């Protein structure tokens, strides 16, 4: 049968199939990369701070030309703007990015500085909008308190002492809790518990709060957000009135799984891919992993080529009547059909490799120089972690990429098998090519517009290739809950094996054209 496969590859070679396919795929991938690169924010963190500084200076320069209701209002805006400029200048001088926890502290520091200047000049800070100054006995004690606070703040910033900062925040929260818990409702109490727990975690894991470059910090923040969502779901009847019960249940399951994943990640000291992507998003940067997964969209080009090949590899022989010569080979029809199927699948595997390879090379070249990207290059590789059916699954990043693309190739293979069967049955190239291309490209777009998760409408999502999105089975986030996980896989297997059986049987017993 190897001879038959070689003959099939010779035909493809003579039609320049691989040459044209390679060119088409690489051009598409290149176009995608260019657009992605141009759209992505590849500025360095300090570039962003410098831009903000320039913008703020421009604003301050034009502030007097703006129509203000009162002079005090204008003066207040000037003071705020000046404080922002001072903060940004400090950050620029000390290489502190916008997302760094010190940015918050510096903001407070320069606000205190402004208030102190006003007090020193005999002005009332309240006139300029600074009303939240707490209780104080006299102007002198207030100034003293603010000066102490300012000194602590600048020391924390200079020493990057986020532990002290976290401890202070925790102590402050616990004090508030002790003072107010008796008067708080259940939801508020739970929410505050969650906040206290978060600060404890920042301290326990020795990570700076709000630091998007520290995955544990981001994970703790995520964990807090997820727990707060659950608390609102449980104690606040009015919180999610815009969602249906099914959507709420789905979201609840998803949040519960995320909580388990994030707790597992902290415990295992392993950065999850979801957090890594979140870090990149917050840091306004595109990472290598993000790009390698994003360029998967270009597998649609491979899918279209695979459909075209599947539609023509057998049906074109009927159309040209060359099938009469093909069956003269001393092999059974089953072997001839198998040779064509194997040629098709090998071609799909070869073409499917192009996109991830291109993605990995161009991703390394273009998206590895960002702060987050560098952490991958230096070895801090994230893992895909998911909680599915009561089991925690952890897959190393590069293996996850391989699995991701293998599943995508498998999906293309299944679509190609269905197309091959369809084309062999009808002995037509054009109809299966048209129908399957439309279904495979438009199917996911259509099912994504079907928001319902309720049977039987949700079934439509599967009929439009929903169950071919195989990644859903490892991510545990099913496109539609009906049919269930196992049924969906069984339906997929039956469709695939059924198509294969139909293909072989039809070709085996088919009368050939004269």
């Amino acid at each position, binding site marked *: 049968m190897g001879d038959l496969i070689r003959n099939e590859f010779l035909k493809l070679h003579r039609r320049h199939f691989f040459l044209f396919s390679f060119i088409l795929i690489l051009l598409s991938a290149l176009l995608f990369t260019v657009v992605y690169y141009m759209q992505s924010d590849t500025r360095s963190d300090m570039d962003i701070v410098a831009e903000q500084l320039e913008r703020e200076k421009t604003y301050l320069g034009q502030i007097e030309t703006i129509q203000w209701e009162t002079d005090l209002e204008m003066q207040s805006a000037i003071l705020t703007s000046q404080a922002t400029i001072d903060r940004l200048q400090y950050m620029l001088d000390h290489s502190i990015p916008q997302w760094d926890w010190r940015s918050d502290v510096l903001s407070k520091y320069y606000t205190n500085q402004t208030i102190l200047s006003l007090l020193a000049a005999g002005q009332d800070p309240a006139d300029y909008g600074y009303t939240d100054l707490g209780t104080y006995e006299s102007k002198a004690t207030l100034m003293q308190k603010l000066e102490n606070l300012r000194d602590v703040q600048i020391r924390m910033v200079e020493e990057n002492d986020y532990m002290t900062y976290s401890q202070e925040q925790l102590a402050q929260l616990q004090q508030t809790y002790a003072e107010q818990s008796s008067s708080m409702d259940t939801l508020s109490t739970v929410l505050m518990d969650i906040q206290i727990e978060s600060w404890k975690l920042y301290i326990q894991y020795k990570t700076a709060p709000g630091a998007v470059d520290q995955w544990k910090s981001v994970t703790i923040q995520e964990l807090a957000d997820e727990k707060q969502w659950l608390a609102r779901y449980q104690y606040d009847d009015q919180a999610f009135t815009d969602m249906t019960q099914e959507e709420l249940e789905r979201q609840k399951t998803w949040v519960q799984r995320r909580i388990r994943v994030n707790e597992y990640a902290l415990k295992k000291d392993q950065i999850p891919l979801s957090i890594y992507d979140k870090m990149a998003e917050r840091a306004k940067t595109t990472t290598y992993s993000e790009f390698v997964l994003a360029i998967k969209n270009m597998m649609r080009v491979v899918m279209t080529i695979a459909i075209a090949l599947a539609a023509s590899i057998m049906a074109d022989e009927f159309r*040209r009547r060359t099938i009469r010569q093909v069956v*003269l080979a001393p092999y*059974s029809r089953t072997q001839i059909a198998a040779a064509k199927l194997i040629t098709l699948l090998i071609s799909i595997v070869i073409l499917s490799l192009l996109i991830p390879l291109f993605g990995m090379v161009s991703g390394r070249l273009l998206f590895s120089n960002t702060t987050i990207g560098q952490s991958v290059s230096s070895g801090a590789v994230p893992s895909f972690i998911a909680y599915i059916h009561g089991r925690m699954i952890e897959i190393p990043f590069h293996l996850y990429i391989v699995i991701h693309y293998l599943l995508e190739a498998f999906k293309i293979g299944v679509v190609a098998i269905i197309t091959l069967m369809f084309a062999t049955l009808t002995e037509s190239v054009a109809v299966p090519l048209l129908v399957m291309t439309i279904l495979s490209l438009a199917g996911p777009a259509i099912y994504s517009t079907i928001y319902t998760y309720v049977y039987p409408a949700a079934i439509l999502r599967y009929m439009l290739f929903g169950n071919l999105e195989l990644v859903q089975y490892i991510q545990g986030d099913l496109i539609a809950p009906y049919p269930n996980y196992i049924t969906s896989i069984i339906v997929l297997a039956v469709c695939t094996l059924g198509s294969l059986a139909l293909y072989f049987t039809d070709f085996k017993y088919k009368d050939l054209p004269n």
Partner: protein
Amino acid sequence: MSKEKEVVLELDNVFRMHGGRRQVDHCSCTLYAGEIVGLVGPNSAGKTMLIRMILRHLRAQEGSIKICGEDIEKRGPHSKGRVSAVLENPSYYRYMTGLDHLKMATRPYKDITVEMIRKVVDRTGLKTCIRDKVATYTSKQRYMLAVAQALVTQPALLLLDEPTDDLDPVGIKNLREILKEEAAKGVCVVVSSHILSEMDMLCTRIIIMKDGRFISDLSSHELLDPNRARVRIRVGQPERAYEVLEALFDDTTVRIDNDELIVTGENLQIPQMNRTLIFNEVDVYEIAVNREPLEEYFMELMREEE
């Protein structure tokens, strides 16, 4: 058993029905190595259907087809006898070269050498264009490529369906020579054609089909039996001539065809017939011994069948 008598093709009660019509109706025969078998019959007689069934293009619903003793469904690259065919209106991959076609045809057979391929290319006159794409071939070159594809696998059974349709007289003569050479080498050649004169010249055995059945199977030797002649006599009074000749011989068959008498029989005495007709005042314009025995035989058989 000599090589010429090796059984190549055995049809045993082969039957196929389609659309309520018996396309091939319980046909049985045995063909031997070295034979050139002509498969003749009117349109829709089942000739092409039978060839397509031997080639596995269509399935026999009953009966069996064996090539060199092996059932066609079980055949593989290592089977004893190979089968190849030149089909009516052969089809090609226009984007491939002639050589590609030959390579693909020979790939399953490891005993085919480059020298053998070269010989076939030379023999079929494709030497100058074998590396060109088939799209650039003339219709004659395309047909000869089909012949080359068929010959290059060194078949034991070679089937040709309406082989002369795409060829000019020179091409037909060349093909005739090639087929005779192949038969001389021991290949069993089966040719289906409408052109009876061509079959007369080429075949060593004729099988006549009608309505899916074999209605006659005889060798060209039998067909050309010198003792059994057919004479056409153009006369002025056919009815009178018929009565005279009917009374003259016991073992002859006489029938009227317009202004002609057709006399069939053994040891026909033409001078005596002529004398008797003249004696009985019948005007004789022409007496001709039939030079196309197959056509005559075929027409006669068709009339009998009707």
